[in-house]
């Protein structure tokens, strides 16, 4: 409360206002918008919950439940940076970390240059909404040449006694030749309702390396919308790995712009949808200049009456020759009541490029199951093993061991809970 009384600097005000105008112009998207065809955000628009203020009592326990030993921990509670819950004792050299609210005033460290500038807000209404209420969050600035070995873990906790709305914000700027690994975990009290509208902006400087891991395990009643937008400069490398198991309605918009020659990016993800949940992932890869490479693998497991949307767009701009882009999207349906909409898209305006995309939807391979059963495994075990292998490919890419273990445990615990240990095929008596 106190902080809001303090007037933010003029540039923040300006950016808020222009974003507010942009959001007012388009409003909440509807299913008539091509990008939102399969995702109805009416429940979010109609919820009309108040903006969250301050912490809540389960926050500390929630943060503890996803502790990653040895990492720098930054905690955002209901959109505000919580210094008390954060742990900066392992802060290495070459890294400046600040709450946006505190640092916004300080024009010297580049926050003003980048905050809200990585986005085209006109096409991201929820990011515009977030920006229009820009108040707090964290900024991670990696100085030129710094190789940061210590992982940085941002824990974004949302919730309270009554339903709230939060707009957390993260900015990561990696200077030339620097390297950093950042993880964000989205978590809320199980069973509580809230709307979390997160935005993360990443600037990968020349020859810099940024790995960003996103673990989305929000409450089953929560609405979770996250916009992640990255710019990668010459020879920069950016990796985004997303793991999603939570939220009633989830929407991820991940956009990567390859802006400098020789840039490389990886965009992987795996999601598990069950119950009546909707998980929507929109990824966009913009090959703006020649000689860039991108690799994308998205996998989904759908159970219950869940619905999932995958929309993966690759744009190769005019003259972005020698582009090498590869996209794979696979989905496993475990239930006849689940629906998947998979829309891989290629837009190519240059001729000397290698672009492929593939999408496959199906169920577990009957022959593989039979093979394992013939070797003495029960059908349920065989299935678990195949599902492990399916999701494992993406999870194995995680390079913070403690976090990988945590995500793996959560993912497979959830999977077992969904399937109850026996396959739908068994129910049908096959």
């Amino acid at each position, binding site marked *: 409360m106190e902080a809001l009384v303090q007037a933010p600097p003029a540039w923040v005000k300006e950016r808020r206002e222009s974003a507010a105008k942009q959001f007012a112009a388009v409003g909440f998207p509807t299913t008539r918008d091509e990008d939102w065809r399969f995702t109805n955000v009416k429940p979010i628009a109609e919820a009309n919950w108040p903006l969250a203020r301050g912490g809540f009592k389960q926050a500390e326990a929630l943060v503890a439940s996803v502790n990653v030993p040895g990492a720098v921990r930054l905690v955002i509670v209901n959109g505000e940076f919580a210094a008390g819950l954060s742990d900066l004792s392992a802060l290495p050299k070459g890294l400046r970390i600040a709450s946006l609210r505190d640092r916004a005033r300080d024009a010297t460290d580049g926050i003003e240059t980048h905050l809200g500038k990585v986005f085209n807000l006109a096409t991201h209404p929820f990011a515009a909404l977030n920006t229009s209420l820009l108040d707090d969050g964290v900024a991670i600035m990696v100085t030129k040449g710094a190789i940061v070995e210590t992982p940085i873990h941002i824990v974004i906790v949302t919730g309270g006694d009554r339903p709230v709305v939060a707009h957390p914000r993260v900015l990561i700027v990696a200077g030339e030749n620097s390297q950093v690994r950042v993880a964000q975990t989205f978590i809320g009290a199980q069973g509580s309702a809230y709307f979390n509208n997160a935005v993360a902006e990443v600037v990968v400087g020349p020859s810099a390396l940024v790995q960003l891991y996103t673990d989305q395990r929000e409450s089953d009643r929560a609405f979770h919308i996250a916009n992640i937008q990255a710019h990668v400069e010459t020879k920069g490398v950016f990796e985004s790995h997303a793991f999603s198991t939570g939220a009633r309605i989830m929407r991820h918009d991940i956009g990567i712009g390859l802006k400098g020659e020789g840039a490389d990016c990886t965009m992987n993800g795996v999601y598990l949808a069950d119950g009546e949940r909707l998980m929507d992932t929109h990824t966009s890869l913009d090959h703006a200049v020649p000689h860039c490479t991108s690799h994308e693998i998205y996998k989904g497991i759908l159970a219950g009456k869940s619905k999932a949307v995958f929309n993966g767009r690759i744009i190769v701009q005019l003259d972005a020759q020698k582009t090498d882009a590869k996209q794979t999207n696979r989905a496993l349906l475990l239930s*006849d009541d689940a629906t998947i909409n998979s829309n891989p898209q290629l837009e190519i305006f240059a001729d000397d490029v290698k672009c492929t995309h593939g999408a496959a939807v199906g169920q577990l391979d009957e022959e593989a199951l039979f093979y394992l059963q013939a070797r003495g495994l029960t059908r349920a075990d065989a299935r678990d093993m195949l599902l492990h292998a399916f999701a494992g490919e993406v999870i194995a890419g995680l390079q913070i061991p403690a976090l990988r273990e945590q995500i793996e445990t959560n993912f497979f615990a959830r999977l077992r809970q969904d399937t109850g240990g026996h396959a739908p095929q068994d129910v049908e008596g096959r």
Partner: protein
Amino acid sequence: MSTATKQIEELANTEYKYGFVTDVEQDIVPVGLDEDVVRLISSKKGEPQWMLDWRLKAFRAWLKIEEPHWQNVKYEPIDYQGVSYYAAPSEKKKLNSLDEVDPEIRATFDKLGIPLEEQKLLSNVAVDAVFDSVSVATTFRGKLAELGIIFCSFSEAVKDHPDLVKQYVGSVVPHTDNYFAALNSAVFSDGSFVYIPKGVRCPMELSTYFRINAKNTGQFERTLIIADEGSTVSYLEGCTAPMRDENQLHAAVVELVAHKDATIKYSTVQNWYPGDKNGKGGIYNFVTKRGICKGDRSKITWTQVETGSAVTWKYPSCILQGNDSIGEFYSVAVTNNYQQADTGTKMIHLGKNTRSTIVSKGISAGRGQNTYRGAVKIGKNATNARNYSQCDSLLIGDRCGAHTFPYLEIKNTTAKVEHEASTSKIGEDQIFYCESRGIAKEDAINMIVSGFCKEVFRELPMEFAVEAQKLLGISLEGSVG
């Protein structure tokens, strides 16, 4: 390289081969569209009341639908009130033999290389030639009638087989389906009607040539093909059009109905005027084509070679309703100069064990923009449905674009759906290899492109495959280097 460039420039300047206008007295309805025009078209054709009512219903629906803009094509807004909605060659008396056909029209067909009599004698192809909007000659009718096959113009079908038309028209593409389908339903001029009775295998390829002729006349063809239980038919459609400056609108509707164990093969070669090399003129081709596999084990195959038109917007689709039914879509789309194409298919799996195959080959050259947009839907009850889609794009030159937008919607766990897409250009090494063996660059490119499209061409009937390959060569001339 420089000689090649010169050669290319020469070829690029080759004018559209089939651009000429035949002077035939035309019977044209005044420009604009309202209910009176719909009534006038209907009365000119001497249609019964139920057909007029259906047209009016469609017209009213059209007024309420907005023109779609989600397609990945750009064109000047169309003035729907600036188009005349009906044109028919003025001499409409009954013809007993080919000799009675207007010599002017005969000459046009000759220029196009479709001599009717020759076809009749040599190629065993029955031709229902549609010159602008009204059929002028129908051959082989007698031979087909012996087997009970009905192959006539849509207008004749309305008069002679009203029960069949009433039962099936709009059953696959309802008059409210989309903006252009509604427009067509209201003002359709003519088209072909085919009915294959139970258990009959049509002994010859049925074929219609369309040709847009009258200036400023939209073409609104409507084709309806019904294959009754256990029957088989192969239908060919091919088009050329004279050179024009204004954009001409073409909004056709094709409906296919395949009953139990029936097979329909529908092949198209589309070579309408694509506009000049600066993107001026050319046909707007907004077509709704859909087939329904109504009965078990029925099969519909769409094969298309799209080389013409300034703007193409076309998704031949299959509704796989019967169990074990099969839908297939094979397409080659070429865009050169400023041509734009947004084409693909929709496979809607409803029945059990339904299978669909999609093979789409897009070739972009010059400043052409080629979009594949396809949907595969597997319904909740479509157990063991199988789909395989393959979309390959070939880019020639660095100012063209290739886009792929597949939509997959799956609601059944037993479904197996695969989509693959790739984009590439003609490899320098491939060209070099051919050239080093004495094959001219232009020929080498034609060879590589033909190979790229082989999977689709082999689905075409023989005569069409030859024509298609020739067309492809002509369409790409002057674009490669």
